[in-house]
């Protein structure tokens, strides 16, 4: 019985392909009412078809159907159930099918909630989404079909890469894809708008919740990835400026710029042309990210088996979609030009500066990511761009942005110059005071503290001043949440980077070592057997001035199906600091090499992103009710 499910899934994939072609009928055949109705239904129907196909894939994993090549390569009978399920999107083929599911889901939503658009725009918009879905699905069927069958059926599967057997990795891809592909809604809408006579303010208003939602998912996806890297890879870093991370960070920066410019367009009708172009660029960078990750040209956890035909296919799709989008824009952009003046010290001026800084930052990252690839493809030189480049370029670009973010509440509440000076003075005093408390160690640290105080204090001043005006506060609460999250993130990143202690040494059982203010004693080592791995678990007793603080249990695992050991870091996470221990290897009897890190405030990095996401969610709710009232 189970065997047939693979066929059902495969059949549904092909059905989805057909459905996409039918969806495009009004564009291809006639633009009659009937064919438009077909388009609207097909765009909704696509989601259940692809979703069920994906559920079929999961079923084959749970049912251990190793007649499917993909299942036999990514699963194993001894794998816990939860990882059998998540293995469905852990490998290349399955994750591309997940991409299609997510894409069909966004098209479903777009179709459901676009009834308030006028018909021609809606038809064009959904047709473009249909083309995107068709392209993605074609890619899966032609080059990465998870339902491909094995010539001989193996008795058991290979196993899932142990690094991926983790909760973070179950949620990270779906969230990231929700963000990436959500931007396709924005892209399709922007391109569809190019074919209209004029760009109406209301359309920017219409697209804003979609931008916010995609942005929120993208933020969550990236934060989960960073969190996973932090506790799973055993190096204790949270961001490596690795090309694959950059691939997700670039669309995020662009989406952040878009998030702001779309407000200016929806409220004042300015930056129309720019907002459309930015929408196209943002999704283009998502696609570029996918190309980088999926084509296998990058060295990373994210690169799967290298198959040149896939790279060529994605490259072709990239050129067709981005080229098509940009061409539509270029041919029609004249219609949207507006020459309204923008004063620098105003909301619109700030949006402009925000956009300039974010787009510049994106291009510096793009350069660092793509330049080595170009040189390599041309066969000139093999190089990589070091982390210091990114820090040296990115951080200075963000400092003016942070100053702007902090100034926003002052700008909005139109306070007088005198009270602005008083405010600035108070903030300076608080920052210096805080720097003393934490005993300042570097410029980075002071910049971090100052930025955070600057943003938060200004927000609080505005709350205090407009406490009698609840409408005003409600309007700004989403923005303030997001900006507050940014401030929390900044302090987490700057303090943990400048005040971290990282030590690598060898320790014998019974021996202890002082790192920072804490003593770490290597108490003992226990063996542990699980269903699909064996492990040794160390017990590290942490104390301060002979007072017991905590026990940390880093692990070293050996998965049955793999020859390589796996390090599971032991983390004692508290709001004020993380104590992080990871085991190296046994260097002699009872003696192990290990890493001990002390990372103050590092948790604030992820807590900050939670606030940012909440901010986006609050903004969505408020605006939507306004539109549909």
């Amino acid at each position: 019985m189970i065997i047939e499910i693979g066929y059902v899934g495969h059949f549904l994939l092909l059905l989805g392909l057909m459905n996409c072609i039918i969806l495009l009928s009004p564009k291809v055949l006639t633009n009659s009412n009937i064919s438009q109705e077909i388009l609207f239904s097909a765009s909704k129907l696509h989601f259940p078809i692809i979703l069920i196909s994906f559920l079929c894939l999961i079923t084959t994993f749970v049912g251990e159907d190793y007649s499917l090549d993909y299942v036999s390569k990514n699963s194993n009978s001894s794998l816990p159930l939860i990882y059998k399920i998540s293995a469905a999107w852990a490998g290349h083929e399955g994750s591309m099918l997940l991409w299609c599911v997510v894409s069909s889901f966004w098209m479903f939503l777009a179709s459901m909630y676009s009834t308030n658009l006028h018909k021609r725009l809606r038809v064009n918009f959904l047709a473009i989404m249909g083309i995107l879905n068709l392209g993605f699905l074609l890619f899966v069927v032609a080059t990465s079909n998870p339902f491909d069958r094995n010539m001989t059926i193996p008795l058991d599967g290979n196993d899932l890469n142990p690094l991926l057997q983790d909760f973070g990795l179950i949620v990270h891809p779906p969230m990231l894809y929700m963000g990436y592909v959500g931007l396709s809604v924005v892209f399709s809408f922007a391109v569809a708008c190019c074919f209209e006579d004029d760009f109406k303010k209301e359309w920017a208003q219409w697209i804003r919740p979609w931008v916010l939602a995609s942005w929120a998912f993208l933020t969550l996806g990236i934060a989960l990835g960073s969190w996973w890297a932090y506790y799973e890879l055993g190096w204790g870093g949270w961001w490596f400026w690795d090309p694959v991370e950059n691939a997700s960070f670039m669309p995020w920066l662009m989406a952040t710029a878009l998030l702001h410019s779309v407000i200016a367009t929806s409220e004042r009708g300015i930056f129309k042309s720019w907002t459309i172009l930015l929408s196209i660029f943002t999704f283009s960078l998502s696609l570029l990210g996918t190309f980088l990750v999926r084509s296998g040209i990058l060295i990373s956890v994210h690169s799967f088996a290298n198959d040149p035909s896939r790279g060529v296919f994605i490259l072709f799709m990239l050129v067709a979609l981005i080229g098509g989008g940009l061409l539509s824009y270029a041919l029609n952009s004249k219609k949207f030009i507006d020459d309204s003046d923008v004063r620098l010290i105003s909301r619109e001026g700030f949006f402009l500066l925000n956009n300039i800084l974010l787009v510049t930052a994106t291009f510096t990252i793009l350069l660092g990511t793509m330049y080595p690839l170009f040189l390599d493809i041309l066969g000139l030189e093999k190089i990589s761009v070091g982390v210091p480049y990114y820090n040296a370029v990115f951080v200075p670009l963000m400092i003016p942005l942070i100053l702007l973010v902090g100034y926003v509440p002052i700008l909005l509440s139109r306070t007088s110059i005198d009270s602005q000076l008083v405010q600035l003075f108070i903030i300076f005093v608080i920052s210096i005071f805080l720097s003393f408390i934490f005993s300042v160690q570097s410029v980075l640290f002071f910049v971090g503290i100052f930025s955070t105080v600057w943003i938060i204090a200004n927000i609080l001043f505005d709350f205090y001043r407009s406490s009698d005006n609840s409408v005003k506060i409600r309007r700004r609460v989403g923005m303030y949440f997001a900006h507050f999250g940014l401030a929390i993130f900044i302090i987490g990143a700057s303090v943990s980077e400048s005040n971290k202690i990282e030590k690598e040494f060898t320790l014998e059982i019974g021996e202890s070592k002082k790192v920072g203010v804490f003593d770490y004693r290597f108490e003992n080592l226990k063996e542990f057997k699980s269903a699909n791995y064996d492990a040794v678990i160390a017990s590290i007793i942490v104390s301060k001035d002979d007072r017991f603080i905590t026990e940390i249990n880093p692990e070293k695992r050996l998965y049955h199906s793999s020859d390589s050991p796996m390090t599971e870091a032991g983390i004692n996470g508290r709001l004020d600091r993380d104590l992080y221990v990871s085991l190296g290897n046994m260097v002699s009897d009872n003696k192990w090499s290990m890493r001990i890190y002390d990372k103050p405030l590092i948790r604030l990095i992820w807590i900050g992103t939670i606030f940012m996401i909440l901010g986006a969610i609050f903004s969505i709710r408020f605006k939507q009710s306004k539109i549909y009232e």
Partner: protein
Amino acid sequence: MKKRSARIYYVSFLLVILGFVLYAFVKTFNENLLYYRSPTQLVNGNFPDNYIFRIGGMVEEGSLIRVSGTKKVSFNVTDFNNKVLVKYDGILPDLFREGQGVVIRGYLQNNLFVAEEVLAKHDETYMPPEVKDSLGLTEDGKYKTMESITQ
């Protein structure tokens, strides 16, 4: 007239700033480029001591030596034509093994490559393209087995 000269000052001021920023940018970019070399290029080339770059290849079978009781290790990295002795004082990544591909960042010191960072490939069937290239392998990554090469 006055307005115009003010504008000239303004624009030239901006250009100077922009030029300075661009200069700093290009300088930072160039300073942080890490070159990649294979053991053969390393043996044939002339590299100044303490110049940081990356090398890659296979960890030679049987060459890994751990200094007992410390985290110091040494091993040979080979592209099957030439090899380089690498020494490292640190914790090797989980996937580091003899007969597997590695990429190492470090510098030369008396014909010895001192590693600052050792990267091993992330899963067992994957090899960094750079390593594959230096080994002269076919596109699909089907490389000659260690035995057939070392014999």
